[in-house]
């Protein structure tokens, strides 16, 4: 009797080995005397990828056991020795080689065996199963002689086996008892698509066939006869009619087993005998057998921890979602694929031509994903699975999750970024998003490194896409920290470029490129530098030397829409507008048939203007006293207001008047990102000033200034910066604050992220802006004064300049309009036609809506 506690493991398959690994990883292997009975002639190998044995992967390649692993943890492995008897009172195990071992803890990891239906003739030669390397060797030998192969069973494994037979050069048939393939995982619709795809691969599928007899064939070795009288002749016959838990020992020696088999275990993976554990496919938890490797791995982990005295881990069931490539066809099934949940709703997408079938099952509120079936294209698997597992609220229209993404929009927002750190990315190896992020932060910056150090993606591989997504997302985040170079053309950050431009008084992008850059610039550095130049010198943005640098929105002074038309947003400072001006907007919108919408910024947006219409439309607006709203620019957007003391019974100050003053002061200021502001007349905050880059709220004594708020993608409440300011001081602080932001922020960095990344944070910002700790405030004010002094309405300048107007011609050599821009009517207004509508309209041009007849 050794002093060490003795642990005996029966079964050295995938889960049995995982159990030993877990003990080793926990560092307890040394304190234990561990022995393993391994019925098979070789140590654990990757059964999941068994089929690759036919594609040249040797038994050695498939092995899961690293060279010398067992020796180094002095684990004794008895190869080819099968446990045949237990004595639970004496606590011993006896093996087929007559070895008898005492145990303190016994672990059954005996897996399962293939079920062979008792059809007459099932035991003839050349009848095989598909579970071990020996099975595959036998199949290969059997196939060598023949030309036809039949697989009985059209489930997951059956189809995988069928592929194997096909690869062995046999004419292959799949015979399924149920009316569809993969009856367990997929529904009828999915089964049909799957069937078609598999038949396209040259495999014959026979569903609803009940095999009654297997006898000698005339042309081939076997003749199978079916209940409907039909027959098939074949040389090789492969049974894949499901698996049964290997619970023989447990039955024989009085452990509780389920009536349909399986060794009953509790949450610690203990059987009815607390010193005996069962893990993997032989175990029955909650009346369920888990025929996948991931749950088995979890059990191995739990049992190992429990045996080493741990008690905080437990097995509480597992998700049975699967994704695999069967004969090159992606197949995935998640959760309640059959929609069995009471009053759940299902959305189905079928692409007949590509034979893609996608179905999602959502709860009755349409807010939670319950299940999904994906055939032919399983790229959404990762995201969908995470949505289901983490109960993430679905978008307003859940079908968007499976519909092909027509425009750029789509649902990427629901990608990895939407996941909590706790989200389990790799279920096989129980790796969370948080764990991946930590590993990446610790330097695992390639997929390979990440996988080897976290084990994520190393088993079924179903999570690989997601692991990659997490990696990329993290790298992107880091990228901003690691290299601050704005792009390949300038080895400088935006802030450094800003200083170069200021200090060396550089006036054009091309001078900057000559002096400090390389190449010819790109869509990153050109707009960024254009913005810097504008912040510093405030030239007209469409000067020939600047025009080509501008992002298209700036270049044509409007926001480009998905169909290449533009929107028009005149400035409506503070959201205050006279009835006459409101009427002008209506008249213009009506004349040019522009889609009209009240924006979230207290102004009015007119959508759908063609490039060539922009000048004439702006002409009319400017004649009526409007000016550009810079909705297209990384510049001051809106200063929202509430009615304030003028009307509101609670109002403390005239918030509208201040909003107007502020908006007119900073309009046209080009900045690293857009700037938004708001002024509220009292603490009730109807203007939402605390969600703005700088917000102002009236007090009894004056104004409170809030800074660095943000709505949008990552909302942030603004911080209270200074209180009870008089107007003059308020403006002074805002001047300094904005100019300091313009100087030091990164490209496309809102004030909120700018502050979050600022060393010293809010206090430092106060020192700079209020106490002038850097002694730059005079300069900042002067720079702002210069911007304010040189403001021009870009649209006014543009329409007064015939040269510039050329830019708005649809074609350099023709006045014809873009015939591809087509609108249809919706709720009494226009909207861009969708692809189908365009095709139809194209077929019959006269059907092309009114837009064509607009006075030019």
């Amino acid at each position, binding site marked *: 009797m050794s002093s060490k506690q003795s642990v005996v493991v029966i079964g050295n398959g995938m889960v049995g080995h995982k159990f030993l690994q877990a003990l080793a990883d926990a560092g307890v292997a040394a304190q234990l005397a561990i022995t393993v009975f391994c019925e098979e002639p070789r140590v654990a190998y990757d059964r999941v990828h068994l089929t690759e044995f036919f594609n040249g992967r040797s038994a050695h390649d498939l092995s899961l056991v690293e060279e010398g692993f067992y020796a180094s943890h002095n684990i004794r492995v008895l190869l080819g020795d099968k446990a045949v008897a237990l004595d639970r009172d004496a606590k011993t195990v006896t093996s087929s080689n007559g070895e008898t071992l005492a145990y303190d803890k016994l672990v059954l990891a005996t897996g399962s065996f293939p079920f062979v239906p008792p059809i007459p003739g099932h035991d003839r030669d050349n009848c095989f199963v598909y579970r071990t390397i020996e099975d595959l060797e036998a199949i290969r030998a059997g196939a060598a002689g023949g030309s036809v192969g039949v697989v009985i069973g059209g489930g997951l494994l059956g189809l995988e086996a069928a592929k194997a037979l096909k690869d062995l050069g046999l004419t292959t048939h799949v015979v399924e008892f149920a009316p569809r393939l993969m009856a367990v995982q997929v529904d009828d619709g999915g089964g049909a698509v799957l069937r078609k795809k598999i038949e396209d691969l040259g495999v014959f599928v026979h569903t609803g066939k009940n095999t009654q007899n297997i006898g000698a064939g005339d042309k081939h070795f076997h003749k199978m006869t079916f209940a409907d009288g039909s027959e098939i002749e074949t040389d090789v016959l492969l049974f894949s009619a499901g698996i049964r838990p290997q619970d023989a020992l447990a039955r024989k020696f009085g452990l509780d087993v389920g009536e349909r088999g399986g060794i009953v275990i509790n949450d610690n993976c203990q059987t009815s005998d607390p010193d005996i554990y069962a893990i993997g496919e032989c175990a029955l938890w909650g009346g369920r057998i888990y025929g996948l490797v991931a749950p088995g791995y979890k059990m191995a982990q739990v049992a190992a921890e429990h045996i080493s005295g741990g008690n905080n881990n437990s097995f509480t069931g597992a998700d049975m979602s699967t994704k695999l490539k069967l004969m090159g066809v992606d197949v995935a099934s998640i959760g309640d694929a059959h929609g069995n949940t009471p009053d759940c709703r299902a959305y189905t997408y079928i692409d007949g031509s590509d034979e893609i079938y996608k179905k999602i099952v959502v709860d009755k509120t349409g807010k939670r994903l319950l299940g999904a079936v994906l055939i032919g294209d399983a790229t959404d698997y990762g995201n969908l699975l995470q949505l289901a597992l983490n109960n993430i609220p679905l978008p307003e229209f859940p079908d968007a999750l499976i519909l092909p993404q027509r*425009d*750029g929009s789509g649902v990427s927002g629901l990608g990895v970024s939407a996941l909590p750190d706790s989200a389990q990315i790799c279920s096989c190896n129980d790796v969370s998003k948080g764990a991946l992020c930590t590993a990446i932060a610790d330097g695992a910056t390639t997929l390979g490194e990440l996988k080897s150090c976290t084990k994520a993606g190393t088993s079924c591989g179903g999570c690989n896409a997601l692991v990659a997504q997490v990696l990329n997302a993290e790298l992107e985040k880091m990228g901003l920290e690691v290299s601050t170079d704005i792009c*390949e*053309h300038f080895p400088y950050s935006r802030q450094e470029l800003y200083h170069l431009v200021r200090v060396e008084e550089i006036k054009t992008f*091309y001078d900057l490129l000559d002096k400090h850059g390389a*190449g*010819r*610039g*790109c*869509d990153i550095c*050109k*707009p960024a530098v254009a913005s810097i130049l504008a912040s510093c010198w405030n030239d007209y943005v469409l000067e*020939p*030397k600047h*025009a*080509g*640098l501008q*992002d*298209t929105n700036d*270049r*044509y002074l409007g926001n*480009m829409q*998905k*169909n*290449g038309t533009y929107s028009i947003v005149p400035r409506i400072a503070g959201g205050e507008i006279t009835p006459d001006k409101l009427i002008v907007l209506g008249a213009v919108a009506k004349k040019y048939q522009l889609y009209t919408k009240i924006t979230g910024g207290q102004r009015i947006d007119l959508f759908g203007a063609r*490039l060539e219409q922009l000048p004439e439309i702006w002409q009319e607006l400017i004649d009526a006293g409007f000016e550009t709203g810079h909705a297209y620019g990384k510049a001051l957007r809106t200063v929202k207001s509430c009615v304030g003391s003028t009307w509101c019974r609670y109002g403390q100050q005239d918030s509208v008047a201040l909003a107007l003053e502020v908006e007119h002061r900073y309009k046209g200021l080009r900045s690293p990102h857009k700037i938004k502001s708001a002024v509220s007349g009292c603490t009730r905050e109807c203007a939402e000033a605390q969600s703005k880059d700088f917000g102002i709220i009236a007090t009894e004594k004056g104004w409170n200034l809030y800074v660095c708020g943000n709505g949008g993608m990552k909302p942030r409440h603004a911080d209270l910066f200074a209180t009870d300011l008089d107007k003059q001081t308020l403006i002074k602080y805002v001047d300094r604050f904005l100019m300091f932001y313009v100087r030091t922020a990164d490209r496309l960095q809102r004030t909120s992220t700018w502050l979050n990344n600022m060393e010293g944070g809010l206090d430092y910002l106060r020192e700079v802006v209020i106490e002038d700790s850097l002694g730059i405030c005079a300069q900042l004010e002067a720079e702002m004064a210069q911007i304010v002094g040189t403001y021009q309405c870009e649209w006014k300048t543009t329409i007064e300049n015939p040269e510039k107007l*050329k*830019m708005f011609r*649809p*074609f*350099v*050599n*023709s006045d*014809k309009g*873009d015939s*591809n821009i087509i609108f249809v009517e919706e709720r009494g207004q226009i909207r861009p036609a969708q*692809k189908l509508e365009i095709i139809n309209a194209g077929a019959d041009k006269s059907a092309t809506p009114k837009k064509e007849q607009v006075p030019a």
Partner: protein
Amino acid sequence: MTDLSEKPGTPADCATWVQVCRVTDIPFDAGIAALINENTPQETQIALFRTLDSDTVYAISNFDPFSEANVLGRGILCSIGEQLAVASPVLKQHFSLTTGQCFEDADVSITTYPVKVSDGTVFVDTSATTLEAK
């Protein structure tokens, strides 16, 4: 027309050169759209670009396959390594000016057209469009 800067790879025989505009009509270091084979079944929108250093001109399709809008002429000119490209103004994918290949998606590329400039006038070989139309 011997002084023509013939673009390599142009099958001169089947080429059909049409005059489009003056080089100076194309904004400096930027692009503009042009319509060729106007009012014929092969009517096609192309985008012309003029580089900053020389007066070399490039012509590609104006159609952005991602947004399915005719906007490439309004994109920003880029150099990616040694290659010249334009960034779609809608979703920012990049297309090579010389091969039409999309940088973000190996499966996507757009038509490019041979260009030559003869004393300040831009000519485009439209045979590619007629071939397409066939």
